[in-house]
């Protein structure tokens, strides 16, 4: 995914004899989740690297000529963990989603009701894609119980949960009633 950068040029600050550190930290505090910081400096800002490391940023360094450096601080990617139901089988080979739902504005547990209703409506093998505002923890066991498969994870900003549900073939038999 392309990272969007906010640019901060500290060369004028240093030129006028100022202290750039507060400006840098201020810029870091104002970054949006997932956003990076592009820093232009007249030297290699070595001490900054460990500070930014602790704040969760990796860096890329590029010499610009004239002794100036461009440093791109990019938020460390959270390990791309993907949750999956125990019965999830080869999600890479699932067909394209038949429906695409944005349920992020609904109050819980409304998203759960909607997704289960969609799963009832669709044919076995069809796939639902949905965006939610949080992990639907109470939905997971219900999906598995009904024989549906699912995979899901948070987006890189951590503010939306994306789930794909593959409608199961069997009904009632897994229900124990």
């Amino acid at each position, binding site marked *: 995914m392309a990272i969007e950068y906010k640019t901060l040029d500290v060369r004028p600050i240093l030129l006028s004899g100022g202290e750039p550190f507060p400006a840098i930290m201020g810029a870091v505090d104002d970054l949006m989740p997932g956003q990076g910081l592009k820093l232009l400096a007249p030297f290699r800002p070595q001490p900054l690297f460990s500070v930014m490391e602790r704040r969760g940023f990796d860096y890329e360094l590029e010499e610009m000529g004239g002794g100036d450096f461009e440093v791109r601080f990019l938020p460390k990617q959270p390990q791309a963990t993907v*949750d999956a139901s*125990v019965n999830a089988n080869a999600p890479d080979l699932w067909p394209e989603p038949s429906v695409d739902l944005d349920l992020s504005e609904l109050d*819980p547990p409304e998203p759960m009701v909607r997704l289960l209703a969609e799963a009832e409506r669709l044919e076995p093998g069809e796939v639902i894609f949905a965006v939610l*505002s*949080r992990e639907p*923890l109470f939905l*997971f066991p219900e999906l598995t*119980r009904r024989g549906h498969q699912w995979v899901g994870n948070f987006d890189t900003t951590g503010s939306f949960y994306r789930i794909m549900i593959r409608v199961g073939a069997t009904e009632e038999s897994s*229900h124990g009633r």
Partner: protein
Amino acid sequence: MQGASISRWTMSYFAAALVFLLAGQALLAVGFGYPVKPVEAPETLVIVHLLAVGWLGLLFCGALLQFVPVLVSKPLHAPHLALHALVLLIGGLLLLCCGFIHLAGYVEGGLVLLPIGGLLLATGFTLIAVMIGGTVLQARPVALSARFVGLGLISLLATAGLGLAFALELSGLTDTGWLHALIPGGLSLHAYFGLIGWMSASAFGVSYRLMTMFLLSPEAERTTSRTALALLAAGIAAAAAILLSLALGRETSVAVHLPLGLAAAAALLFGYDVLTIYRTRKRKSLELNTIMSAGAVAALMLSVLLYLTLVLTGRLQDDIGTLVYLVGFGWLSLLGLGQLYKIVAFMTWLEYYGPVLGRRPVPRVQDLVNERRASGWFYLYAAMVAVAVAFLLAGIAFPVQVAALGQAIAAAGLMVELARTRHLCYVSTEPADSKVRRHPPLFLPNPVERS
């Protein structure tokens, strides 16, 4: 990833907790202990433990068993221990209270019941710590809200261990010097670990997560929240240090002022965070549970104010009972009742309608409750707490008893409302599945174990 399921015994924890609330309030109303008798009278200890262990302890344990898996997105560790812990806690509490009644001199002998009860309680709470702590540790790095819960568990074990030590000492079974030295100063630390370290810390952690969930506020790990955690942890460490120096026979003149001061600062930061969560919420209309939670946090802020006033006027020693009353009933109980009202409705909805969701129309969660009826009981409860605290400060016992009776009536009213929710009394639609029960069992697990 299995997600979160209904915690099977949580409703039983809640039912037992409510019965103990009613019993404790009724004893307060008839003047069995405080404020008619002194704070340290055995009769008061009966009431305090019925309320602190029976009501708040079981309520918090039941709620944590259900919601810690939601906090950390992991299934509950060792869920089969839930019933064992419940039986140990109820049995231990009843024995402990019998021991206190013996201690009061109503019946000769029987002091051995104190350590037996204490041992059962400590064992039960250890099982709780294993379940909750095990769940939290599965999800490393541990989220901020879960770290509050972890801090609470450490304090819970400290509370139970200290309580067991007191029970041994009071029973006369042992004659150990360091136990002897513990009692005078240690009692306030026991209360500190229990009310602040265990319950308030857990309540902070769970509130951070549940309030953002219920109010649809942006979830963020704020610096203020992290500072609150650090202050609470420092307070608990300070309390532990004081405890150690008491056991070694050293005088500690600062007593509990340092831990209390740190906790008060943490409470202020928590109050500020809650205000932020309410201000940035996307859900504009407040539900009854979130209104009551706000009231509870207001009571916590008043507790801090009261604490500071008492310290400045030098009346902390005399009015400590009032402060504990406000923290116990205003902050913890009101928060607990408010959340209980929401949790019971949600769990009932999920338990009964979960299997048919999407297959047929089902009522909404809010159709399972009647907020208009419940709000009357909630406001009565809150008003009676305010009245009781005012008269405790004035030092007049009788109106406090009347207010406690009012609290008991309000609690009973809320119990009826919760039972009506469990019985789906407010739902007008067809039963979810005519082949199964008309409504979920009142407080026992559903006998039909779903695969």
